[in-house]
């Protein structure tokens, strides 16, 4: 490969462009207002939110990989957080066992959703939309019934503060301590990124999921158990949504019905900006993280500028739409190149 083509390929990689854009915007906002460089008030929370939203992006990515959507990611996160919260409140479980209960709940919800899609042959869009409504009712009902006016489980398991508020700074090796901006919350997100990335890049399961997304009929004719793969994709989606839900509850310090209500849009933005195809068959796991960080930098940057809430929302929406359509246009070109043979 000549150096020129190599450079062209690097510049053509959506992830590189996104990273440059993210860093560029970050510096730009920082230069306009140095408060933006504040470790404690801006960067640390930004990364902590980024961790949560990356995981919810991965949840959506799993559904996207087979060409489906999961419109219930937010509510699955809410139910999982509810399960974990209840287990802390009533059974006084330790942090990890409670987390596990949350994860199992999410995975089960995902599996049920996947099963319903396979059995009913109804589009995933409709099924997850219905699921979202059903779960919304369920979550509100439970919180109100059990906790009355507070509408929250507030018992904090030991160790919650550690995940919420501390950073790698507390770990030192031979006098060198980790950076203070690195929230502990990033650790589960990174683990999720590695595992999901590994699965799609290297394993048979990942390959079969992508094959199912790329061409369902061909996958079926090649002996891939497509029904089970569909269920698997939704199970993983539910599991990751659960992780994101519990992570958000830890960040907030309480388990409430509103957890996950802000998840839907970011869950698409991360993967899609990062280069995951909406039609299935191709995923960009690392891109999901970068895409998520980009949206967060834009949001935080604008709010530090002191832009009012309404203006902020409008600006944010516009920026995201532009970014999305740019990504979409780029994708159109790639797919024309790919499927150029009409």
């Amino acid at each position, binding site marked *: 490969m000549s150096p020129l083509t190599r450079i062209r390929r690097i510049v053509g990689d959506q992830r590189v462009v996104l990273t440059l854009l993210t860093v560029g915007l970050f510096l730009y906002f920082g230069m306009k207002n140095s408060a933006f460089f504040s470790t404690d008030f801006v960067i640390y929370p930004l990364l902590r939110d980024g961790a949560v939203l990356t995981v919810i992006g991965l949840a959506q990515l799993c559904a996207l990989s087979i060409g489906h959507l999961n419109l219930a990611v937010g509510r699955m996160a809410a139910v999982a957080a509810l399960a974990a919260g209840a287990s802390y409140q009533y059974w006084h479980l330790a942090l990890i066992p409670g987390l596990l209960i949350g994860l199992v709940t999410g995975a089960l919800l995902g599996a049920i959703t996947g099963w319903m899609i396979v059995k009913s042959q109804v589009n995933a869009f409709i099924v997850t939309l219905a699921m979202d409504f059903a779960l919304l009712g369920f979550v509100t009902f439970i919180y109100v019934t059990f906790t009355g006016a507070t509408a929250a489980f507030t018992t904090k398991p030991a160790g919650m503060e550690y995940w919420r508020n501390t950073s790698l700074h507390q770990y030192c090796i031979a006098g060198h301590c980790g950076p203070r901006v690195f929230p502990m919350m990033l650790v589960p997100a990174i683990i999720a990124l590695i595992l999901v990335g590994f699965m799609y890049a*290297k394993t*048979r399961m990942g390959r079969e999921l992508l*094959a199912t997304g790329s*061409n369902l009929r*061909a996958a079926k004719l090649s*002996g891939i158990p497509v029904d089970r793969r569909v269920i698997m994709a939704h199970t993983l989606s539910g599991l990751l949504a659960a992780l994101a839900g519990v992570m958000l509850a830890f960040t907030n310090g309480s388990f409430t019905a509103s957890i996950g209500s802000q998840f839907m849009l970011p869950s698409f933005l991360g993967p899609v900006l990062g280069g995951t195809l909406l039609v299935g068959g191709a995923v960009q796991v690392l891109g999901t993280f970068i895409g998520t960080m980009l949206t967060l930098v834009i949001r935080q940057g604008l709010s530090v500028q002191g832009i009012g809430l309404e203006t902020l929302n409008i600006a944010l929406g516009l920026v995201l739409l532009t970014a999305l359509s740019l990504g979409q246009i780029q994708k159109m070109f790639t797919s024309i190149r*790919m499927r*150029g043979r009409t």
Partner: protein
Amino acid sequence: MNTELRIEKVSKSFPGVKALNEVNLTMKGGSVHALLGENGAGKSTLIKIITGVYRADSGVLKTNGEEKFFNSPVEATDAGIAVVHQERNLIPEFSVEENITLHHPPTKFGIVDRAERTRLARQALETLGFDIDLNERVKNLSVAQMQLVEIAKALVTNAQIILLDEPTASITSGETIKLFDVIKRLKESGTAVLFVSHKLEEVYEICDTVTVLRDGESILESKPLSEYKQGEIVDAMVGRHLADRKVELRKVNRSVEPVMQLTDIHTALGHEKISMSLYPGEVLGMYGLVGAGRSELARSVLGLHGISSGELKLNGQVVEIKSLRDALHKHRIGYVTENRKEEGLFLDFPVRKNISVTILSKILKKLGVISFQEEDSVSTKYVDRLGIKVVDNNQLAGTLSGGNQQKVSVSKWLAADTKILIIDEPTVGVDVRTKASFHELIVELANEGLSIILISSDLAEMISLADRILVMRDYQLVGDLDNSKDYTTMSRGIMTAIHSA
């Protein structure tokens, strides 16, 4: 003025390949021009440049003296150029009628004139002598019927220049004869026709002039076809002399237990009383006209549609196959689909991943991790063996030429190491040389003990490859012939079986 389309020094590159290199071609009204070349030679690319699908890197296009490239397929259509692309471009959810009149729906006051539309579509199909229900949705048609609709769609436009990219690849001789009648009529009325095919007999029957492409270069440019013998044309395509392959009679031992036996099979699709046996190491051919129900039988037996009564035995055991997955993993039966684009390929996967998809379970390391090294070596093996033209085996399957896509779609099943292989139209759109090496490979596999059911509409292929030929008509078996591999007697025998009541 006489219709004329001229291409001068047209070049086109894709990443890693020079698909066309200073190609020249002149086609004239009242004459049929053959465009020939091996898979990946650049034929389809040239057609797409003429019709504005791709933009040429350099060169000139002159239509009736006017020098300009079309910027889009619409412009080309408006200039009186109709095209049948190699890959079908029908809208599956639309009816036959809607598809045929898609580009120029007749209108009255801006609203589609349905009666007129029906008339046009019916007329197009009637001129072609094809019998297809106008209201059927295209997705319910067989591959061959779709091809016929595609041809009708090009003909309704009354174009002065018609480009046909392998129109006969997936239809049988009966429909081809009808198509040729129409082409002859078009020719008499002054239309210029470009005809791409890998079947040289057809080319000699219908074409007047010829252009041969090899690796993107025009080796013969718009020459009178009658000046060349078939062998010379092949040599021009391949670039060296290709020896005739001799056909050999194989010995199949039919005194042992059949590997697969059907007794009195009936299906919901309409098959009646189908009984047949497949012996170890046998190549069993199934011939029939379009719509005879051959692929449907295979798919029913393999659990895609299911059978309503009758008995299926594998190695003497009565079994029921519930799904293709069952067929593959439990019984080691593979099915190579005739429909490569919709069912055979992952177009946005690289060639490597397409070939390995049936053998993932065999190339695993610990923790379900795929061994990329083995994946690479398996795919490279088939790429070499079938001469699949790729930049490397990471090239996306969707960017291969049609014939090369077909090879990939077949490769994954050759790699799967099955006991029985049902191959549906394996050499559709595959060039002469590859066809030969592909046939060798099939015989080799059969000699190693693989039992093969070959469904093919290519009579010559059937006769040179099968040990025994079953003839099917209207979802029933109407003939069972031992193959002497002598073309004249066999083709007569088969035709008698098809046409006798």
